[in-house]
């Protein structure tokens, strides 16, 4: 009996972990709050959001949200969108901070945390693996 309980719990935990935190390298979509009227952003606009130069999206304060920098999704998104590798991107934000131009975007460890924030903040912009998109967020296209 004890063995059966243990196996059930173990399997459940494993499934929950997979649902909460798995990401896949190179495969991401950009998500925004469901109330956001945008259906797309240009790559240049997306770059400006994640470098702090575009402070509004759809008339709302833009709140970019990054994956943890050591996450494969971040390591695919950041160079492709900002044109800087992750180390240069971190250095860029240190420079912006010292110049008084702001601090780096929020960082979250997994898709669930990012989606939770995006669904709460009207101007939030994040990115998650395509498989992790659900009804709590809205996917937009990148031109």
């Amino acid at each position, binding site marked *: 009996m004890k063995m059966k309980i243990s196996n059930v*719990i173990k399997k459940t935990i494993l499934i929950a972990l997979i649902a909460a935190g798995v990401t896949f390298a190179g495969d991401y979509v950009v998500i925004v709050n469901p109330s956001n009227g945008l259906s797309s952003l240009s790559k240049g606009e997306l770059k400006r959001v994640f470098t702090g130069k575009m402070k509004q999206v759809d008339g709302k304060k833009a709140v970019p949200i990054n994956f943890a920098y050591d996450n494969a999704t971040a390591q695919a998104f950041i160079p492709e969108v900002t044109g800087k590798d992750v180390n240069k991107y971190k250095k860029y934000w240190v420079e912006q901070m010292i110049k008084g131009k702001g601090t780096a975007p929020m960082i979250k460890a997994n898709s669930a945390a990012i989606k939770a924030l995006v669904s709460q903040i009207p101007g939030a912009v994040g990115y998650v693996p395509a498989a992790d998109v659900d009804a709590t967020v809205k996917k937009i296209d990148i031109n």
Partner: protein
Amino acid sequence: MKNMWKVGIAVLLVLLITSGAWAQEDKFKVYGFMDVNYIKYTILKDESFVRQFGSKDHSFSLGNVNAYFDFKPGDNVRGLVELGFNDGAYNHSGSNGTKFVTLYNGVDLQTAIAGLQAQAAGLRTQAAAATAGAATFAGFGLTDSAAYYTGLAAQANAGADQYDGAAVGLAAGAAGLSDSEAKDTRRTGGVTIERAWLELYLNDHFTLRSGKFITPAGIWNVDHGSPIITTIGQPNQTDFFPIFPIAQTGVMVYGAHWVGDHELGYTGYISTGREDEPGSEIGAIEKVTDFAVGGHVSFKNEEIIDKLEIGASGYGGTLRDKYMEMEITVDFADPNKVAIMHNDVVQYEGREIALGADLKVSHMNINLQSELNYRAVTNEFGGPGTEAFDGKETTYLAYYALVSYDLRLTDNISLTPYAFYEHIGWEDPENQPYSTLASYPLIAWDQYMFGLNFGLFSNLHWKVEYVYGTIDEQDPAITANNYSGDDLTFARFQTQLTMAF
């Protein structure tokens, strides 16, 4: 079924643990940077002019500790205060941790200040001052020291109409000065408000900012923090002889516009002007024309090459220095009858303009940064006895170039060797007799820097640098001096550990 509640708890626990804190963006943040410096001069003669800027001792000291207080009470409103604690020679940033000795009329500065403060202790003359008659005092206050009144009476009896209280105070102080007091090192550091402003964001093209701000001129003045500056030392044209004001208090507007991938940025401001040199009167506006105006425009692109930034800066403002004079009349017949009148006395008035161009280029890990700056100061009033210089101009021309190469050794460690050269020169400094430069027997300053910058984890840097400088002396026909050769050179080795937090 019996196990389902356990399954449910397990799922809930896992989701709670992995989801982390679902916080909104923080409305208040504190961050900053700090650096620690070691310096050793390898060329610094005791007889040289530059001796006053350095110590021959090994110097290991805390340089900058700057804290930023960043507050966002609403989506479109932001406030930022940057406080700087500096233990070294330069308040602005890039401290080299130097402590140096300043002697003022043969008396160390602390003793001289104490003497002046003693004079400001009271406002009413003592009975002994009845012998002074009527006299005008520069500065505030009177004291009851015998030496003070001896000097006071002597000048009044000699028919002088202005009494230089500082001279007597310093003389009295010097008489009792010990060797250790005379050698006391003098830090020019302390706690400073580097900037403090509030801003209102309307859109990406227009943000309104009010308060004290770092002057948006060139590259180096804006960068200003040791973790993001490649070198340890700063260009003299942004620090020791600032072409543009380092910071100003006023109102600024700024924004940017994008045409494809090209970013066109602008900044414009109106302010109370320069606050960082003699002739600057902080915060005082006597006439509308005293307001300073300036701005910066830039073009940025990261598609043509890795990075291309071109900019131009301009500034125009008034310089004025004045003090409040207290005129005291003591009735000889009845010393208790004292009449006091306050007058504003302008010691210096001038106008200045500054223009600059800046360039920043990066490609294939090679970086080039350069600025060219020009400043012209016109003397409009230099004080009594300097009328010959009214309307005359002093000009400054300065430029620098910094070349570096980024090597990534590992994911978290980089190495950036660099070389830097700067020239700053000025013409006709004697036309501003109130300026400190007028008394310097110099007309130009060149410095070279070579070093290595080790980057660790993007916010921690260790720099090792060698600086060599030469100074050109002014025509001896204008300023008599005996400087030659090594009197006009200096060299130092320095290293710095800096971190952003």
